[in-house]
């Protein structure tokens, strides 16, 4: 553990991207070769409203250091209203996580359209930077994993 601790901190970041806007935005970032750290791993969901708070907490439990949810811009949801519900749910959930003392910077929602490859890459760079500055997520993870 002591050796690992000296290594550069590489956070684990899970990004939930809606299929229609943000996943396509991430594809565009890829085809435009707009790099962002490999720490970000994307899970494709049909819509930001498919993201259950359970998934987010589970990610943290399993050792994620940051979770970001990306969807279509409000008003542009492929399913018309999905991101409006996602927006309320995530606002309340993030507020609750903040309330129990989890750093609010570890969770984020960003609206990225299919045309915003640049924004996707910039957002991920920024988010990774933020998580790096926050350091390892010791408040939420499954402590059993610590010394394995």
């Amino acid at each position: 553990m002591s050796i690992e601790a000296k290594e550069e901190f590489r956070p684990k970041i899970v990004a939930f991207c809606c299929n229609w806007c943000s996943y396509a935005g991430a594809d565009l970032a890829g085809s435009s070769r707009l790099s962002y750290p490999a720490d970000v791993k994307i899970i494709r969901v049909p819509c930001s409203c498919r993201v259950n708070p359970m998934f987010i907490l589970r990610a943290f439990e399993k050792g994620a250091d940051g979770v970001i949810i990306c969807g279509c811009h409000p008003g542009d949801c492929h399913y018309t209203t999905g991101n409006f519900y996602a927006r309320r749910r995530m606002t309340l959930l993030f507020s609750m996580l903040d309330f129990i003392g989890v750093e609010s910077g570890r969770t984020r929602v960003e609206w990225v359209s299919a045309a915003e490859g640049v924004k996707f890459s910039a957002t991920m760079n920024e988010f990774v930077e933020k998580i790096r500055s926050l350091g390892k997520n010791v408040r939420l993870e499954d402590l059993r994993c610590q010394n394995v």
Partner: protein
Amino acid sequence: MQRVGVFVCHCGSNIAATVDVKKVAEMALMEPGVVHAEDYQYMCSEAGQARIQEAIREKQLTGIVVCSCSPRMHETTFRTAAQRAGLNPYMVEIANIREHCSWIHKDMEEATKKAVLLMRAAVAKVNLNTPLRPGESRVTKRALVIGGGIAGIQTALDIADAGYEVDIVEKTPSIGGRMSQLDKTFPTLDCSACILTPKMVEANAHERITIYTYSEVEKVTGFVGDFTVDIRKKARSVDMNKCTGCGVCQEKCPSKKTPSEFNRGLSTRSAIYTPFAQAIPNVPVIDREHCIKFQTGKCGVCAKVCQAGAIDYEQKDEIITQKYGAIVVATGFDMIRLDDYDEYAYSQSKDVVTSLELERIMNAAGPTKGHLERLSDGKAPKEIVFIQCVGSRCADNRGKSYCSKICCMYTAKHAMLIRDKYPDVNVTVFYIDVRTPGKNFDEFYRRAVEEYGVNYIKGQVGKVIPQPDGRLLVQGVDLIDNRQILKEADMVVLAAAIEPDPDVRKIATMLTASIDTNNFLTEAHAKLRPVESPTAGIFLSGVCQGPKDIPETVSQAGAAAVKAIGLLAKDKLLTNPCTAHSDELLCNGCSQCANVCPYGAISYEDRQVNDHGIREVRRIAVVNDALCQGCGACTVTCPSGAMDLQGFSNRQILAEVDALCR
């Protein structure tokens, strides 16, 4: 337990150059359920697909993971391949190791590590996949075209000629659009009206085309093959069945001070008006905001002079509800406002005009009856300066970042026409680049220079200064000579950038079609699906998708029509099987899910259930597969987890989360 095969694609060097594909395949074999793993040059090639099919048959695979490009690219390819080998297509998962990995990471070790994780997540998911079968939905054999410019007219004609009903919705009182405002067209100098009017007439006369002018789309519900649209027919105040189009009302109307939209405000029109002589339908509308009768209650001249008794002040907006199988957006463009460009003195001098205003000045039906004259004093100009790229290719927030594409050509056209008709007028064009890709385009531009003596100067204009004598001092630069130029001109013409019609944002929202930051509608694929929106059943025609000239617009309009016809020709559509389902043993029947369903796909029924021996009647949520589009909003609203989404189930997503955080 599944028998999973993992196929890692090199994509030539696109993936293999940054991801150790052999290592990914090797690691795959250590994952639970994986019984086969291989890598290959191009998995999407015929040979690659054959390898997948062979493995499915030989190793009796029950699920496969392809580590390749984005599922948005080849998911369908691999699903079809798997299906041909006897595997349910929904037992295929894609790990996106190109767009989300090899293309954005440079370090091989890091990229390989990430690729392995993405592969693991896909394997974890496919282990929980279940075979899914698509349902069917019907197709309404009718198309809606939003916008009645040349793009909309062409699309409507093509669809109607193929035998389908088409409705055109146009917000202004006449179809025709921007093209009807143009004088001549490049590169052959045809008269715009001469080629457009026959098309307008044809559309109007077509038995399968219904034109709703002075109308707007108000509400869109439904989905591909089965849209329901509310169209607001604004009150015209004139009975379309009675009006004979004699025009007396317009002559007699005492309110004549309204700036004419058609002439870009360079002339005025009456309150009851048709925008131009060839308008279709040739039925005027009363502009209630400027009508004396509507504003003060006293007038009614038009009703008195109308022999046909067509004037109807009581007319109300009417909502027409219609079902459509396909919708084509052809909302077109407008020129940007030049309020922020003080340096060109557009708002200070009447003799600084936009190119579209010049079109009206040059047109025989325009404000000057086609005579080239200064709008300030009516004098014939001797010196005209054209300024290119006004608001195009701007990195600041005054203009647009893109090239408006049509300005180089129409400026060459204007310069040529002026020199042709008025050989004593000097024409100077300040340009940054002259862009003429297109058949006979560069030849056209060269003719302007070589045959017509138009003076092209490489360099921009910094400032236009109105002089006390009414002339305009143009301060520009010649970058080739490296010299600053001060030039007196009588007229300055600005090639203002074009932008999508501002209403398109509202329409895109109704259609849930994606739109970019410049308000251009996004196509499903920039190269391979340029006339389709990512939203199924929505097609794009003309400038709403990106700047285009007339020939391009017409060819895209035809392409959009073909895509729409291809959809309308089908009797049934296969529906997405990734729909929500409710577990009758877990459902509380609490109605929360129906509250968030955008499609009204959830209803409730009292059903006899057998819950581990307890038999009782329970209120249970039921999802209509044909209506459900699979967004998943209901699954999160459901506290008990009874509502789950096929293909993106709670367990599948959690498995992915676990695999990625491992």
